[in-house]
């Protein structure tokens, strides 16, 4: 026989002003199984909770219904109170009579009537509640970091520092990411390579860190504490364990006309290559699209010159599987393609470049050895125009709706560096707003204007017309002078918007994490949980979550590492007991449930059943791994026989609620 207690909260006047709480308590007191029905000013207060606890003990309650605010608010509070009084916490149900009743209805009579109905539904449900025990599942003491840019490197170093194993998966042949391509960093103007490459080396030498370069994540199974990840190690046709990175093969390779992606295609590399001198791992990679040996079977020069015999033209993709307790996403960003904005003539003129291309043009390891020369004729530019916000801050169809955040500062940096190194070069920056929030940022921008005499013009370039004499006519508005300008520029630099890497979206699907419409990963809470995803055990590091500069990226990377470490130090984690379970006697073994399960929580086994005629039949039946199941219930509807049901939200519980509401 059920002994149910009902507790109706006034929430001060929040509920009591529109719902006649006494009437509600009175009415619910008459429901079958209800042995006590009380109202109280603040049920969530300590004395309110004591009321519940005492009633549980005094009346030996088998179920509790609290009519109060949303269960999203205080369900846990009352569950804990029940547990401390010796009642299984899952025998507590909440009727939401505040957010979904008193706050939205004005008429006391109808609000009270509705509150009673909601209370009745909760009583009907609690009749069918079963005590549930939360299980525990172990935590694999290893972290995976996806992406080997500065974000991934920092996260990996911090996790390794705490004593846990970390694997970095990087899709390119080397770690380092975008920061490796950058020349100097703002606002200090120290050289990016000088601060990044020691970290790259540190990562490669840390014995807790394993770097899977030229690799991709192809499959993720499991759940927090217990992910199983498949990593594809793409064939690089060079044995990583043998290659010493001497670089002789890259010198001798006869195929020298391969666009060099590290230098943004501004110069060429060989078919076998090491992206840059400080690459980690410093191992050669063969580009099969260009390698003569791979294409025609004739060449083999690299193989001949390699003294350690590392070249292997027959190498194939390798797949490795590894268990992880936590996963950190650090997939980073890319500048957008500029095809849509050809009023800036990016496709028509080699001297119209993106800011990242300019980084390479100015970098000592870049195509011109650090001397700024025009890509078209290798002459010194004397007038350079920078255009801000290309593809950022746009209306829907026109580009990215967000501010790319880093462009104002790197443009100031570029302008300053150019003026510093080539004082005879005039620099114009067309801006909409100059956005420099950050320590020492505005001071930096002011220095560009005041000390380096960079011409900042409030306005926008509207048309770029390359001319045959090598000059580029830049037509733009100067809003403060109320003039339309024509500048005969030698180079135009476009601050292209940045967007998340294209690999992020399929990865999000694999990880069952959420993304916004711009393909940035969504954090669990925009203010209070900024480095966690909504999926437990998945953390976010760097620009994959939103545009960020280097210091912010590193800060977030360390924060993500801290969160991951917080998980990895635990030996086990408590699971949600509201999970699906299958009644083997009714299961058809048809696999429908398995097909709709987003977590791969359902497996099948052949089981022997005693039949009524005493024979033994072997049947294929489903079983749910309660540690993997997250309790969505998709399987319960896919199951035609109704063998699959969900704890806490069972078929009969929901139907009881329906019945109570419709009574």
């Amino acid at each position, binding site marked *: 026989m059920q002994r149910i207690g009902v507790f109706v909260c006034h929430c001060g006047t929040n509920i009591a002003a529109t719902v006649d709480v006494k009437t509600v308590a009175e009415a619910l007191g008459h429901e079958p199984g209800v042995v006590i029905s009380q109202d109280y000013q603040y049920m969530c207060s300590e004395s309110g909770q004591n009321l519940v606890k005492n009633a549980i003990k005094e009346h030996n309650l088998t179920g509790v219904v609290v009519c109060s605010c949303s269960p999203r608010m205080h369900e846990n509070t009352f569950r804990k109170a029940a547990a401390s009084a010796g009642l299984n916490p899952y025998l507590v149900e909440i009727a939401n009579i505040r957010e979904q009743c008193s706050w939205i209805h004005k008429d006391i009579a109808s609000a009270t009537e509705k509150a009673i109905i909601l209370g009745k539904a909760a009583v009907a449900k609690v009749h069918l509640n079963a005590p549930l025990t939360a299980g525990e599942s172990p935590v694999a003491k290893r972290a995976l970091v996806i992406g080997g840019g500065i974000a991934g490197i920092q996260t990996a170093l911090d996790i390794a520092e705490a004593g846990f194993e970390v694997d970095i998966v990087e899709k390119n042949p080397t770690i380092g990411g975008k920061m490796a391509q950058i020349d100097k960093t703002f606002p200090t103007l120290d050289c990016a390579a000088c601060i990044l490459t020691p970290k790259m080396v540190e990562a490669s030498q840390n014995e807790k860190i394993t770097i899977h370069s030229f690799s991709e994540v192809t499959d993720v199974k499991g759940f927090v504490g217990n992910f199983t990840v498949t990593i594809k190690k793409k064939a690089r046709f060079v044995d990583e364990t043998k290659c010493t990175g001497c670089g002789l093969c890259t010198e001798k390779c006869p195929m020298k006309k391969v666009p060099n992606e590290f230098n943004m295609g501004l110069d060429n590399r060989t078919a076998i290559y090491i992206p840059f001198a400080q690459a980690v791992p410093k191992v050669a990679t063969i580009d099969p699209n260009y390698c003569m040996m791979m294409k025609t079977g004739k060449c083999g020069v690299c193989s001949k010159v390699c003294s350690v015999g590392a070249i292997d033209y027959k190498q194939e993709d390798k797949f490795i599987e590894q268990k992880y307790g936590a996963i950190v996403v650090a997939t980073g960003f890319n500048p957008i393609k500029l095809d849509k904005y050809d009023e800036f003539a990016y496709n028509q003129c080699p001297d119209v470049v993106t800011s990242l291309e300019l980084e390479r043009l100015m970098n000592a390891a870049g195509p011109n050895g650090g001397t700024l020369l025009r890509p078209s004729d290798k002459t010194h530019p004397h007038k350079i125009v920078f255009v801000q916000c290309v593809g950022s801050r746009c209306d829907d169809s026109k580009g990215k709706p967000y501010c790319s955040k880093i462009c104002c500062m790197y443009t100031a940096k570029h302008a300053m560096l150019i003026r510093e190194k080539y004082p005879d070069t005039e620099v114009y920056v067309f801006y*909409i707003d100059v956005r420099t929030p950050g320590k020492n940022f505005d001071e930096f921008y002011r220095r560009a204007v005041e000390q380096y005499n960079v011409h900042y013009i409030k306005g926008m370039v*509207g048309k770029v017309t390359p001319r045959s004499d090598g000059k580029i006519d830049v037509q733009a508005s100067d809003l403060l002078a109320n003039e339309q300008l024509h500048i005969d520029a030698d180079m135009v630099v476009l601050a292209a918007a940045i967007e998340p890497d294209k690999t992020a979206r399929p990865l999000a699907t694999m990880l069952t994490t959420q993304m916004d419409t711009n393909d940035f990963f969504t954090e669990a809470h925009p203010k209070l949980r900024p480095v966690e995803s909504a999926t437990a055990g998945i953390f976010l590091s760097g620009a994959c979550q939103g545009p960020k500069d280097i210091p912010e990226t590193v800060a977030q990377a360390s924060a993500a590492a801290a969160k991951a470490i917080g998980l990895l130090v635990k030996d086990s984690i408590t699971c949600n007991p509201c999970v699906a379970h299958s009644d083997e006697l009714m299961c058809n073994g048809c696999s429908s449930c398995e097909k709709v399960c987003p977590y791969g929580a359902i497996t099948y086994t052949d089981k022997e059943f005693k039949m009524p005629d005493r024979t033994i039949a072997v049947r294929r039946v489903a079983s749910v791994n309660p540690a993997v199941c997250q309790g969505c219930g998709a399987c319960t509807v896919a199951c035609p026989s109704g063998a699959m049901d969900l704890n806490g939200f069972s078929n009969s519980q929901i139907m009881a609620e329906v019945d109570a509401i419709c009574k």
Partner: protein
Amino acid sequence: MNKNLKEQVIRSSGVNVLKCMRCGKCSGTCPSYDEMEYHPHQFVYMVERGDIETLMNSKSIYKCLTCFACVDRCPRNVEPAKVVEAVRLAAVRQQGNNHMNPNQIPEMLDDDLPQQAIVTAFRKYIK
């Protein structure tokens, strides 16, 4: 500030001037900029402020080539040319405010001039 005129121009153009982020790209791309007293970005801003009559009385409204460069290149989809058109219509719709007089036309003609030029002028400047 003329509220009625402002509302009329906004309704007639179908443009939401509040979307403008004041980048000035419309004026940066406008081929008629130098011929205009008020420039495309000013049209948008002045309509937002309700300063319509100043625009109606300016020759600028007849200098727009309706080439839609500002419409296509505006990062915010504001469509300044439609604002110019709406102001011009507000002007020529007023009695006796036709910008062109049919009597003037013959002296403008030459043998090769396509009549599309005349049709267009009538369409744009006369009510």
